[in-house]
């Protein structure tokens, strides 16, 4: 686990911090009661398919605060895409997954901002739209594979 000790934090683009401030202050989706790692995982899940490079990266989540289950989830960001034995060995180094998860979260924050802006402050509308998206996600990602 030496490779994990070399990394102290997970990073986000500095501009996304402003968005998080806004969401926490307005209690959007209960962001005010979420930990930084929950917010990070949520953003990375939203942008999982379109990782993008960070601009002016800023520290956000302390790696010390990640539990085994958090690390297990984040490691799949890369490991889940491994095609060969060599890639499996390479992607088991969680550093690769952290970098990828940061890129996914970067996109995720943009997607979230678009959704929040589209709801124009109507929490109920936002929640209903997200619930509908969950239904689609389940059908696409889970049910079709069962």
């Amino acid at each position, binding site marked *: 686990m030496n490779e994990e000790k070399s990394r102290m934090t997970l990073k986000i683009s500095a501009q996304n911090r402003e968005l998080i*401030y*806004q969401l926490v*202050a*307005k*209690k959007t*989706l*209960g962001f005010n*009661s*979420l930990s930084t790692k*929950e917010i990070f*995982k*949520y953003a990375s*899940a*939203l942008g*999982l398919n379109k990782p993008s490079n960070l601009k002016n990266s800023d520290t956000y989540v302390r790696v010390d605060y990640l539990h*085994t*289950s958090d*690390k*297990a*989830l984040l*490691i*799949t*960001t890369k*490991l*889940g*895409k*491994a095609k060969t034995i060599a890639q*499996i*060995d390479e992607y*088991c180094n*969680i550093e690769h997954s952290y970098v990828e998860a940061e890129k996914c979260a970067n996109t995720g924050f943009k997607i979230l901002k678009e959704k929040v802006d589209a709801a124009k402050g109507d*929490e109920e509308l936002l*929640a209903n739209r*997200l*619930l509908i*998206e*969950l*239904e689609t*996600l*389940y059908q696409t*990602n*889970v049910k079709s*594979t*069962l």
Partner: protein
Amino acid sequence: MIKILKIEFNNFRQYKHVTINFDQNCKNHLHILKATNGTGKTNFLNAVLWCLYADEKYLSDTSRALPIINESVVENSKAGDKLFVNVRMTICDEKNNIEFSRTQDFTVIEDPFKKNKNVIPGLCTFKIIITNLNDPNKNTVVYDDESYTLSIVKQYFDVEIFDYYFFNGENLENYFSTDANKTGKIKKSIYNLAQVTLLETAIDRVSKMAVEKSRKSNQGSSWEGFGYYRDLEQCKNDIINLTAANTQYEEENNENIKRLSEINETLNNIKPIKLQQESREKLVKRLKELEEQKESEIIKRNNFIIDYTIYLNYYPLIKSTLNTIYEKEKSGSLPPDIDKKLLQKILDDKITTCPVCSNTIDQNSVLAIKKMISNLDVDSKTSHKLMEIKAPLEDFVNKAENYPKERRALVASYDFLNSQIDECKEELDNISAFLSKVGTIDDINIPDLEAERNDLDQELTANKNSIAHNIAQIKIREDKIKKLEKLIEEYEKKKKYKDDLVDQVRIFRQLASAFEIVKTSIAEEIKLEIEEVAWDFFDSMIWKTQTFGRLEINDDYIVSVYNINGKETIGSMSATELMALAYSFTFAIHKASGKNCPLIIDSPLGRVSDDNRINMANELLKVSKHKQIIMLFTPDEYSEDVRNLYDKEAGSVRDIKLSEDESEILEVGV
């Protein structure tokens, strides 16, 4: 006055072992050395030049010259002998005795074909020994590092203008060169001695520093800070306004609550609508409870959205990772679920009963445990990592696949709550509708009161929402203020740094400008001084009183002499006049340099004839009262009239005599 005290020669050409002391206790510091042509006059000068500069500057043809070592010394040596040449010149000024000493080693070789001896030059060393005359212990400091010795030599006999210290009367055109290279050296040397170069270096340095600091001070926008201050002010004003608005909302609400309470009390006391009033109170209470429950349901719903966005998006990757793990497990490439630490503890603590199954651990068991630990050591980190994440990932899969059930439960609970809230609200609306139509009872207009009550209710809710919104806005601005204050702190640090740089730039520019003024002033003063001194000397040496009008030195240190009609005359001057001018210019340069250095002149009157000789000899004698002059004469040049004057007035008059075999100077005697 700087004087040469002594010059010692060892094996330098014909100066095999010669020491010449220059008498210090004389009224005129004039010393005469006489020698016939070829005896060693020019080599006397060359010896001194070699000592100071490692270069015999008056040697006619370096490439075809003999080695500097005395020929007879070489011939009388054997092959392999180590020989040396040394010239030592000791000078003194007001504070120090300074000895310049150069030694060149040689090794003798024999040419087997020509059957003669030759020398190979070896190490050449130069040292300067300075004795402080004011030091009672007469402690000496020896300098042999070139960086110091060059600098010390430069202070007394700058090589750039060596011919103004070691004057060659046969080469007068050299002193009126219009070659910029030559005159440039004079200027450079005088500037060096007068510290003008130091000022030029300082100007260059401070100008560069000003440019560099100016460049740094211009980096980055100086306006960025204004944005921070403006935003900070805006945030503070917003907070004041939002707080004031909330205070007003709260005051309004207090008034509204008070009025609502009055209305309710009035309505409660009207018997015909008492039942509706009691129902409404219960319904309001119930609605409040339901809305609190809804808050909690919203939290559950939000958590559901967050969690299931993660599970469902990650599901394909989790499944793929798990499939990899299952395949590896199936192929046996993953380690068994064994607690390696426990196994090691069993061995370390020599535990005899298994902590898992309570069986006895015998010798065979110990061997089996050791083998198992060894096998675990060779398993890859990848396998361990995969094993570590397997269980949490399976948990995620279960949760994701349980989505429909969880969603149904959430929706059912949420919908049920909403339906109850709707029912409550409907009943309240019905009561309100009834009261709005009931008319006047006991002179109280019930519909009006009910309408007022509804308005107050709505206003209360609206105000509460506004207060909540404003609190959120205040929090956003408070966070922004913290950030802005940090930015302002950094900006102010940068600004202070920049302001300091601007101050420094101003000071450096002022310094450069001041140095430039001082430099120009000194340079002009030096030039004028040289012009003045040179003219005074020239005018006193020249017998013509109606010919020459003035002497001018231009900025490149090229000398011009104008006649009384203002026409340049230097090109048509006689040899005697040129010599007088050369001396005048030389003395003026000496004076301007700030150091009264000695002057050695080869053929001092060689180009001067007739009455002018005694006139010039007299002028040089006058100069020697305050300046040491060593003159090298041929007997012819040391004519009777000159002899009559100098034999009587000079500090010393010596003859340089060669030995019979002409291999060495035999004596330099009076």
